[in-house]
C-alpha cells in the first residue's frame, strides 16, 4: 500500500508503522520512549504527527500505516503539543539533563530551553550499590524503556514502574537496588535510558573529572 509523507509517496507493507515509514524516507520525528529493540509503546507523545482527516495529532510509533494515508510531520498542532510535552517533562527535573542525553538532544532539536513552568521538581535520589549501574531517580521521565529492555530484550524482569503521576519512577525489584533483584547486570536499561536516570558508574565518574 501507499502512504504520502510531507508530499512524498512511499510504498509500505501492512505491518509498517507511521514512524518506520517516515524513517524509511530518510525523514525523522523526535521520540523519547521509542527504541528499535522494543515493541512500540506510545507513552511519550513526542512523535506526534498530523494525519489528513484525523481529529488530532497521532503518535507515529504505534500507528500502523493505512493505504492512502497522508502524513504531515510538520503539522502545527503536533509541533505545538510536542514542544509543550517536552517542556513539561523538563520542568520536573531538578537540573537540565546532561547534554549528551537523548532528552537533551530532543529538547535542543525542538528549541525547548529553560521550562516556563516553575513548580515541584523531583528530589535527588541516587543508588550506587551495584558495581556498574547507578540510579539517578530524579531524572526518570517514566518512558518505560528500561523496564521494557529488561523484559523484552533481556528477559530478566528485574525492573518495575513504580508510583503514580508526579511520583512515577522506576525500581529494581522491590526498590532495594539492582543486586537485590533478579537483575543479571546486562546493562540494557542503562543503554536505552534517554536521561541517564540509569547510568553506568564509570560514566558518572568520567563526568566528575572534566
Amino acid at each position, binding site marked *: 500500500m501507499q502512504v504520502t509523507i510531507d508530499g512524498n509517496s512511499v510504498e509500505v507493507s501492512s505491518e509498517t508503522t507511521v514512524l518506520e515509514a517516515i524513517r524509511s524516507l530518510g525523514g525523522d520525528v523526535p521520540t523519547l520512549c521509542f527504541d*528499535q529493540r522494543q515493541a512500540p509503546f506510545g507513552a511519550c507523545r513526542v512523535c506526534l504527527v498530523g494525519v489528513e482527516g484525523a481529529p488530532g495529532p497521532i503518535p507515529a510509533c504505534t500507528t500502523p500505516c493505512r493505504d492512502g494515508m497522508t502524513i504531515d510531520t510538520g503539522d502545527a498542532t503536533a509541533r505545538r503539543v510536542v514542544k509543550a510535552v517536552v517542556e513539561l517533562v523538563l520542568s520536573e527535573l531538578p537540573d537540565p539533563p546532561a547534554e549528551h542525553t537523548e532528552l537533551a*538532544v530532543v529538547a535542543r532539536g525542538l528549541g525547548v530551553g529553560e521550562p516556563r513552568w516553575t513548580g515541584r521538581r523531583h528530589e535527588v535520589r541516587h543508588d550506587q550499590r551495584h*558495581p*556498574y549501574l547507578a540510579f539517578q531517580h530524579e531524572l526518570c521521565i517514566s518512558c518505560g524503556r528500561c523496564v521494557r529492555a529488561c523484559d523484552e530484550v533481556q*528477559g530478566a524482569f528485574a525492573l518495575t514502574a513504580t508510583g503514580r503521576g508526579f511520583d512515577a519512577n522506576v525500581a529494581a525489584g522491590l526498590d532495594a537496588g539492582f543486586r537485590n533483584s533478579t537483575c543479571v547486570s546486562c546493562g540494557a536499561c542503562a543503554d536505552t535510558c534517554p536521561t541517564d536516570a540509569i547510568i553506568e558508574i564509570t560514566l558518572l565518574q568520567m563526568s566528575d573529572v572534566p
Partner: protein
Amino acid sequence: MSERFDSNVTTTCGYCGVGCRLEAHAHGGRVVSISPALDGPANEGHTCLKGRFAHQFSRSRDRLTAPLIRDGGGFREASWEDTIDLIAGELSRIKAEHGADAIAGLASSRATNEDCYAMSRLMRAAIGTNNLDNCSRVCHSPTSFALRKAFGLSGATGSFTDIDAAGAAIIIGANPTEGHPVVGARIKQATMRGLKLVTIDPRRIELSDYGVLHLSPRPGTNAAVMLGLAHVVARDGLLDRDFVDRRTDGYDEVEALIALYTPEHTEEITSIPGADIEAAAHIYAEAQEASILWGLGVTEHKYGSEVVRLICNLALMTGKVGRPGSALLPLRGQNNVQGSSDMGALPDTYTAYRAVSDEEVARSFEQCWGVPLSRQKGFTIPQMFNAAVDGRLKAMYIFGEDVAQTDPNTAHVIAALDSLEFLVCQDIFETETTKYADVILPASAFLEKSGTFTNAERRMQLVAPAIDPPGEARTDFEIILTVSRALGHDMGWRTPADAMDEIAALTPQYAGVSHERIGRRGLQWPVAADGTDSPTLYQESFELPGGRGQFAPLPYKEPGDAADDEFPLILVTGRRLQHYNAGTMTRRTGNLELLDRDWLEIHPDDAARLWISDGRRVSVRSRVGRIETEARVTERIDPGHVFTAFHFPEVRTNLLIGSSADVNTSCPEYKVVAVDVRPVAEQPAYTPALAEPALS
C-alpha cells in the same frame, strides 16, 4: 551522543562465541564504556555483563607491560631485542639438537584469526613442525570432528536467527543464560513467543523454567538420550523418509541399532522417564522447523564426538537441517574457538581443515611460504604434555592459554611444563602457566588489537583497537611476526589484513574474504570469490562426496568414570554468568564484586545424608585430586550429582579432573567425575555430635 569520548570504535566482543558487535568508547587512554552495536548481526543491540562491563582488566595494574626473562627463582624485565634474541637462539639450538618436532606451539582461541594463522605459519614454516594445537581441543573439538563426518563442514549449520524461526528447539548440555547470555536472552524471548523448548541437562537450568519439558539424564548418558529420541521418531512414523532417501547414506544400520533403545531401555540407562523421551521426540519431530543447540555438556565426555554424530542422526532422520529454523547450533565457548581451528592452528590440518598429508594443499603452502613442510601429523595438547614428560618434547611456545589452570589432570600438566628445557608464554597477565616459563612476552587484549574473530555462526567479524597495549606490550600479531623474522622466516605482511588476504588466496572456502568485505556485517563462511557468504548450509546438498549426509550407527557406551562406594557422587563442571573460564579477565573487574566465589551445588537429599548444610565448607575428592569449596543446597541439581564452576584459582576445580577423554579428539571428560564430598569438620571427626537441626 559519543562526542564526549576521545574515540569510539566498533569491534567484536572477546568473551564468548556469540560474537556481539560492540561500540567501545575510550577516554583518557582507557575504555570507559562499551555499548552494543545496534547493527550487530548476532546481538542486535544487546550484550551481557561480560561484554559490556568487564573491560577494566585491560588497564589492570598487574598487566604484563615488559618482556620478562627467568632469573633464578624469579623474572627480570628485559628489552624486546634481548628477549627475541634469546627465544630465537634457544629455539634454534633445540631444533638443531633434537629436531623441529621437539618444539610445540599452542595458538589461542581467544586470539584473532590472523594471530592464529601467523602462529600456524611460525610453527610450520619458521620452525618446521606440525606440533600445533589450540584450546578448542578441550572444548568443541568433538563437535568439529563429528560435524565434518556427518555433514562435511566444521561449523554450525545455520545462524542464531534460526532460533526465532523455529517452532521447537532442543538444548542439550548447555546453559545459555549463563554461558552465552545474549543467545540465552534470545531463546528466552522466543519461548515467550511460543517456541517449544526442551532442555536436556543434569541440572535444571534457567531456561528449563521457560521450556515445555526438561529431561535430566544421568551424566555421561547423552548418547542413550539421543538414541532413545531416534527410536521414538522411527517407531511413531516421524521419519522424513523422502529426505533420508534423497539426501543421506547409512540409515539402515541406524534403524537396526535404534530399535534397541526403547523408552523403557533408555529410561534404565539415563533415568529419564520413558514418557518424557517420547514427548520430547514428538515435540522436536512434529515441529515444522526445529533446531538443536548444544554445548560442552555434550562434547566434554569420553564419547562426546559420538554424541554429536547422534545429534546429527536425529536431524537427518527428521530432515531438519538446511532450512531457516532447522539448524544445528553448537554454542562455541570462546570468542574465536571456531576461527582458531578454521585457521589451521591444529596438528593435522591447514586452513579449512585440509589435512597436512594432502599433497596438493601442502604444496600450495610450500609455494607461498617458500619452505618445505612436514606431511606428518603433529601432537595434540595432551600428546604434547605426554611427550614433554617423556623427554621427546623440549620446548613450547604457549600463546594465550593458561593450561596449568584450565587443562585436566593438572599435576601431569605441571610435570610436563617443568620438564621442558624452554617455555615461552605470551599472555596479558602472569598466570599459573607462566610460573613455569623461561620467557614471558607481554601481549595485547582484544580491545587493543585488530583482525577478525569467527563466531559460533561461522561469521567472521572485524576486531579493531579501542586503546593501545599498555607499556611495552605489543600485539600478538606483531610479536609472532617478529619471532618468525628472528628465526629467519619473514612473513612479509604489514597488517592483519595482509594475512587475511593470504588466507583467502590459499583457501577456496574463504576465497572472497577480505577485511574490507567483512565490513560491519561480517561474512559467514564459506565465502565465494565474489563475496557471497553462507548463512544457511546444506540447503541443497551436504559437503561430502556425493553430497549426501552420513548417518553413524553408534551405540551408547559407559562414560569413563562412574560412581562407586568410594566416590558416590558425579561431579559436573560449568560456567557462571559473571565469570569467564579461568577468570583471568573477569576476576580483575567489578564482576568479582557480583560473584566472588565458587560453590558446589548439591541436592538436599545428598546434603542431608552427608550432614552438609547450605554455606558449609566441603571437601571434594576425586580419584586424582581434592579441593575445598562451599556447599549450596539446591533442587536444581538431581540427587547423586553435584556441580561447580572453574573460575577461581583458589579452588582449582580442574585438580579433580582425570585423563579420561573423547575417543576421537582427546577432548577431556570434564563433565563426568566421580567424587566423594564431605563437610570439612571444624572439630575432629571422632567428636560425638548430633546432626545439625536444620537438616532434621
